[in-house]
């Protein structure tokens, strides 16, 4: 007796978004089915992992995460180059943390200078992530957008209360905008509409559903991504954008990766546990539809990259 395999054909399709220039461009999205459901649809592009690079020495990072990068951490350009050359990064995410007013409060011009230099030194597409503090976020991302004009970078992030300046900058300088909303389908849709209402092409928007790390709200992100994806595939054009998930920053600050095995012997080797924590978070997000994962530890990235390869086998 043959089993009739229940195949679903969706009416919607996720928009394919190309990041980078003609020379180094990478395309994500474009799938017309649920994550890795090769048996019933096409998934033309594999999910991508971006290495997080900070514009300042990451003194608050755990040694475990710093160790693989060593001396490179002292110079963001060297750091980015190491990610590309030593660890074969497909993409780099430059986190402009030091521009935050509560941190070093570096100027937007300094940040822009760095963006320019990094672009000239590495040949993979770039994600530019602002400090998040709204006034400064606008200044920094606007200047950096200008510095990277024409390179089709991903600019993160626009939020509901502060999306216009960043969207305008992405429009003017030809970038891709990240629309960040707090784990909610309707808010995500609303922000995509608001951004599109500025005459911004929906095909240049990426959704950041807001990532919860494993044990810290991961299930909320997981379900909201599944819901957005189902609605998008069901035909909702204003949700048919790829996802970006900032994994590393959420994972590497939780208690479970920080406590040494001498304190919690049952938790096992701290370094390996941390790597597993980051990898498990990433894998779970891949299963709910992540298209770009921003991560930190090269070993975790390696595990996830291998898994992506296995999940992309038809």
């Amino acid at each position, binding site marked *: 007796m043959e089993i009739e395999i229940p195949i679903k054909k969706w009416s919607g399709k996720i928009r394919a978004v190309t990041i980078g220039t003609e020379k180094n461009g990478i395309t994500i999205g474009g799938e017309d089915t649920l994550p890795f459901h090769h048996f019933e649809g096409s998934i033309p592009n594999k999910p991508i992992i971006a290495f997080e690079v900070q514009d300042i020495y990451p003194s608050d990072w755990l040694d475990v995460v710093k160790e693989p990068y060593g001396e490179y951490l002292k110079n963001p350009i060297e750091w980015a180059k190491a990610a590309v050359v030593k660890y074969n990064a497909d993409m780099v995410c430059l986190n402009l943390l030091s521009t935050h007013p509560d941190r070093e409060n570096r100027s937007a011009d300094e940040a822009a200078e760095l963006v320019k230099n990094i672009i000239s030194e590495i040949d993979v597409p770039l994600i530019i992530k602002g400090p998040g503090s709204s006034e400064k976020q606008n200044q920094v991302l606007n200047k950096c957008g200008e510095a990277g004009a024409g390179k089709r970078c991903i600019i993160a992030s626009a939020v509901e209360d502060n999306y216009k300046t960043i*969207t*305008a900058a992405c429009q003017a300088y030809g970038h891709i905008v990240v629309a960040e909303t707090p*784990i909610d389908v309707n808010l995500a849709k609303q922000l995509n509409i608001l951004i599109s209402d*500025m*005459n911004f092409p929906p095909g240049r928007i990426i959704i950041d559903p807001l990532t919860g790390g494993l044990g810290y709200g991961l299930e909320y992100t997981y379900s909201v991504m599944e819901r957005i994806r*189902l609605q998008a595939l*069901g035909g909702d054009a204003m949700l048919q954008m790829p996802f970006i998930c900032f994994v590393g920053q959420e994972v590497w600050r939780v208690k479970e990766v920080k406590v040494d095995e001498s304190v919690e012997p049952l938790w096992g080797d701290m370094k390996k546990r941390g790597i597993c924590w980051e990898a498990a978070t990433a894998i779970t997000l891949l299963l709910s539809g992540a298209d770009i994962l921003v991560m930190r530890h090269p070993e975790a990235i390696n595990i996830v990259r291998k898994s992506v390869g296995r999940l992309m086998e038809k």
Partner: protein
Amino acid sequence: MSKIIASAAIRGAHKIFSRAETLLKETVKKNGESREVKFPGTAYYLPVVYALTGKKVERLCDMYEPLNQAKSLLPKIPSENLWLPYLGDALDAGIATLIAEEIIEALKFVNGNEPINGIWLGPTTDAVLREQGIKLVDGRMPGFAACVGAPKTKEEAVKLTRDLQERNILVFMSSHTNGVSMAEQLAEEGIEMNWDTFLVPYGKDTSATVHALGFAVRAAMTFGGITPNGLKEAREILLYNKNRVHAFVLALGEVDDEKYATAAGAINFGFPVIADTDIPQILPTGICTYEHVVSNIPYNEMPSKAIEVRGLKIKITKIPIPVRCGPAFEGERVRKENLAVEFGGKYTTSFEYLISKGLDEVEDGKIEVVGPEIDDVEEKARLPLAIIIEIAGRKMQKDFESILERHIHTFLSQAMGVMHLGQRDINWIRIGKEAKNAGLKFKHLGILLRAKLLSEFPAIVDKVQVTLYTNEEDVKRLYPAAKSAYEERDKRMGELTDESVDTFYSCQLCQSYAPNHVCVITPERLGLCGAYNWIDGKAAYEISPHGANQPIKKGECLDSVKGKWKGVNDFVYERSNNTLPSFSAYSMMEDPMTSCGCFECIAGVLPGTKGIMIVDREYQEMTPSGMTFFNLAEFVGGGQQTPGFIGIGILYIVSKKFISADGGLKRVVWMTKNIKERLKDKLAERAKEIGEEDLLDKIADESVTTELEPLIEFLNNVNHPALKMEELF
């Protein structure tokens, strides 16, 4: 359109066009037609020409084609007896004018009479455009004013400039009136003019006005992502400007034919003209969002008129009051020992009253205190107070008054050292000593209220005027009007029926945890959480058109008893992710509304009684259904239809539409004391209306019983009306 204006514009267009034509001929003669021509620092060629025709002018010879297009647009100059030149003709003439003007300006670079000269800055570079344009797009700059000509005096020029600057409006200046230009007036007064001060002198010729439009078209190309390619794209660029670039023309001094022609060009962009002289007005809306030409406006009213006519939204980034302000101070108390002054409470008459008025009845930014100020009274004084807020807005509606008024509480509470409790005429306001010492005046409360209303409700509030009366007689005099307005509003809410409207509102705030749940809010059925009624939904939609509250057109009525409409069904089906094909507003038995989990009460059938019970969230004990509130909540919540059970807002119980398809209030056989207490008067009133005056005594509560059998006995003893009704299921 006024014939005078149209004729003048067409005449002006012809003049400018032939000047451009001649100039081009001469320039070609001197330089040859392959001579390069360009504006400095732009990748958009001659931006206006490029945007409107799609032609990339790089050499003199490239100018022929656009100039020919301009020619083809030129209407005939109307003769004295022809009564026909109208909007369309004048607008075409305007476009032709702009093309010709830009060509004239561009030729200046070839002919060596550089437009960038002294105080004159000439055309904007792309770099500046991007930097400044972003502010226009993100709202930091509400818009730009293209000032054409000059005010009568230098002093008036300075005053007008300051008024515009204060509102962050970018000021472009061009042309002159009888040889005097506004930029020169300002220069003589020693005012610095450049892109940093938002004061930009383009050029003394009228043709230099085209640079303001060059700025506008590039905004559309840069931020609107539109690439010119002919007529279709030109229209998109014009529309982009109409919808997003909030610019307007200030016509200062006598308006000659060439200025009319240029203004006609601007009107194509949806930029209205505001004139100080008595030129004919063009009021009906067509191309521009609102009026096209308004005239005879005194200088001091020009900015506010422009805001009104162009629909500018001013963003207030910092509220000028001497104390800190933010949500962190919301719950702070001002205690007796720390008191500077107080209003209301049980001590004095005090009320707050927000009223909507016509756009020309409200002077935005006017804040007045009538009666003593804070420094005029002794410490711990108790004063009467009337806060009168007058609001005007193109989208303001009478129904929104109470919603905006409710926010007075939050807004005032957010000022450090100010405590606000209550609402309407039962408010109580205290100001602390520290706030007074920091320099807080009563007037600042008005400033704060205006700023907050404008920034929190930009979609519906355009103008705010606040008056604070602190003297007895005025407060007494004004009170009756406020009081009757409060009563009027309550009455209106009571009179609103589901039949009287064609639109309901949805609430999908809770879909984050009940993904398929859609709340349908009707005038007679408020949201199940009790927090949103129909008017709230309506206002929320105006304020945030893509938000959680969306209008639902009722559409064809499928069943007036059960409350089923085609439009509502379609909406609910789609928004419930295709899980709920049908919805009844007035029945808990057939396709009842789903619940998220936020309901104030749960109503559920009680087998054997023909009736229902209602339990509220606070009551955690057993009910006659054999289930507690939380047991029931588990079955009722989560966005599923559970026939026989609904989650409701408490006020729905006293609505005429309360399960009206199932028999209404008469079905209630048990409800908690909390509910009885909270709805006491209203329940009595409703019982009377349905001819069951003693119904309340026949409804059991937990003091009678929490079990089914004794309840049935009780109902028989009191002869509850439900017993005589049909079975519910």
